């Protein structure tokens, strides 16, 4: 009997010769991540347990991205508390100020997370790194504390679900549309506690930026992790970034899956998730007339340079409609600089955009772009729960950068085809 890639990575990190779904294992962790919201609790727990030194200062990443630049006194206090810990522990991967980017864009970009790794993060979108062929999953702050102490954590081995995606994606259809479509099909608990493995010829040709957007949203289907078999595209991405060895795992041909779902990507159109669940998905042609007050292009889902280039393609010829607040958030300082050098920021400014510093702020309704009562936003983010971006009576519609840009131009949810 063969194993899917997820089980192979877990087996190797647990030092086991065999493994099966449902089994509880203790496994070694390669990278443990915390942010400015979740780390304070982890640090307090670490200290309470008598922790003096983290298990490995090179394997803990602390990224102060959620309320950066500090939005108020209490968020500044939280960051100060983490900073003191990071300095005391000489944490190698500590990011704040001009170094900080949105964690799930930053860690792959800096080569901190690599193929074959076992990564945990006290942030639900830690599953993003599955795009590299790693096992990556979100956990709580206490789990992070346990890993900082011991370098290990308990896991329940997930069953794997396989998604076979074939066909050439039409113009304006992206990885974001694929994953929205999948979540729309299976629901927000469609992959509860499971691994989502993405394969098929569409996936073999899919750029890394799109893979990262897809793995990012695995949690929105309830999954433990999303994963892609590493290949030439992975190698291309990782080379030049990695500063330590990494390993490619692949699923056995006779691996056992809990379910197999096949999708023809050539038939897809851009997708939009309506309020208030990421599974409330419609094709853009069924969106109807939805006027918007804000368009947000950014986040760990779609704030990479590739996303900004797509938006710039549209804003080169069109401005944001009056009455629409357009906010563009390059996900990391590196992406910001790239966008500057490529002239994208000028295009956005000419189109009427506010350019935000790299920050989670607007995505989670923290700061830098909050919605008022009754307002509607189209966003390239990953969650549209009640109150996610502001007032409990505001609404968030999730889509790709192309759709968010076209919608900003037309003042309503729209396909780029309409321009």
């Amino acid at each position, binding site marked *: 009997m063969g194993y899917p890639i997820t089980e192979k990575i877990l087996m190797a990190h647990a030092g086991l010769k065999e493994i099966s779904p449902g089994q*509880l294992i203790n496994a070694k962790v390669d990278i443990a991540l915390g942010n400015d*919201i*979740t780390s*304070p*609790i982890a640090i*307090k*727990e670490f200290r*309470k*347990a*008598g*922790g*003096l*030194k*983290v*298990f490995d200062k090179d394997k803990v990443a602390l990224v102060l991205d*959620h*309320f950066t630049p500090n*939005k*108020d006194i*209490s*968020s500044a206090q*939280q960051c100060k508390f983490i900073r003191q810990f990071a300095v005391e522990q000489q944490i190698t991967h500590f990011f704040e100020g001009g170094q900080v980017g949105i964690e799930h864009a930053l860690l792959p970009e800096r080569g901190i997370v690599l193929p074959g790794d076992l990564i945990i*993060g*006290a*942030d*639900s979108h*830690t599953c993003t790194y599955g795009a590299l062929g790693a096992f990556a999953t*979100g*956990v*709580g*702050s*206490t*789990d992070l*504390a*346990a890993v*900082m*102490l*011991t370098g290990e954590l*308990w896991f329940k081995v997930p069953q794997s679900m396989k998604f076979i995606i074939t066909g050439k994606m039409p113009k304006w259809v992206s990885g974001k549309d694929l994953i929205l479509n999948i979540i729309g099909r299976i629901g*927000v*608990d469609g992959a*509860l*506690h499971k691994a989502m493995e993405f394969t098929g010829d569409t996936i073999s040709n899919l750029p890394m930026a799109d893979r990262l957007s897809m793995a990012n949203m695995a*949690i929105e289907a*309830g999954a*433990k992790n999303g994963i892609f078999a590493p290949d030439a595209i992975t190698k291309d991405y990782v080379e030049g970034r990695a500063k330590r060895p990494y390993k490619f795992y692949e699923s056995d041909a006779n691996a056992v899956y809990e379910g197999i779902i096949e999708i023809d990507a050539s038939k897809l159109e851009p997708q939009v998730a309506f309020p208030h*669940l990421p599974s409330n998905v419609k094709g853009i042609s069924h969106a109807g007339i939805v006027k918007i007050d804000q368009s947000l292009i950014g986040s760990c889902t779609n704030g990479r340079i590739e996303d900004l280039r797509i938006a710039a393609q549209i804003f080169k010829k069109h401005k944001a409609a009056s009455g629409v607040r357009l906010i563009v958030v390059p996900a990391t300082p590196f992406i910001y600089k790239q966008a500057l050098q490529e002239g994208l920021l000028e295009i956005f400014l000419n189109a009427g955009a506010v350019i935000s510093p790299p920050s989670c702020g607007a995505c*989670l*309704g*923290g700061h830098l772009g909050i919605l008022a009562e009754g307002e509607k936003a189209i966003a390239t983010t990953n*969650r549209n*729960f*009640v*109150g*996610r971006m502001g007032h*409990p009576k505001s609404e968030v519609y999730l889509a790709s950068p192309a759709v968010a840009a076209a919608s900003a131009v037309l003042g309503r949810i729209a396909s780029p085809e309409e321009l």
Partner: protein
Amino acid sequence: MIFQGKVWKFGNNIDTDAIIPARYLTTSDPQELAAHCMEDADPQFVTKIKAGDIILGGENFGCGSSREHAPIAIKAAGISCVIAKSFARIFYRNAFNMGLPIFESQELYEAVQEGEEITVDSVAGTITLVSKNKTFRINPIPPFMEQLIADGGLMKHLAGKRVNIAGMNPK
């Protein structure tokens, strides 16, 4: 353990933004978080509940972010345990790691109205609907999780094994 209290009923997919909105995450103080528990699902929630009351959710309770502030807010608000048809996985993990008791039951949800009293007996594995004298079985907790709860959560569990842990103060 035995938990007894009034049931506060919520729907499917109650997410962590409803349990504790991100706008309050500039602190991790349990009492401050408790003041906003379930605010975006029911703004009056914290003024209505009494210590020991029980939250009853539908499918996928606690979906969304990894914030441990969610079980912390619920526990600090005085809720004794959470029962749901199913739990989202990070919430499930966090609840055990924090020592907030949670139980899965498919049948209870339809059988009980909001405001009714129930008794949960985690040892016997039963939930009793007091007024109607009806009893439901709850799914057993895996032995490893029972050990975690018995030890008082993940960190205390690890502290019990501290001989193996290099980074720990051997006091």
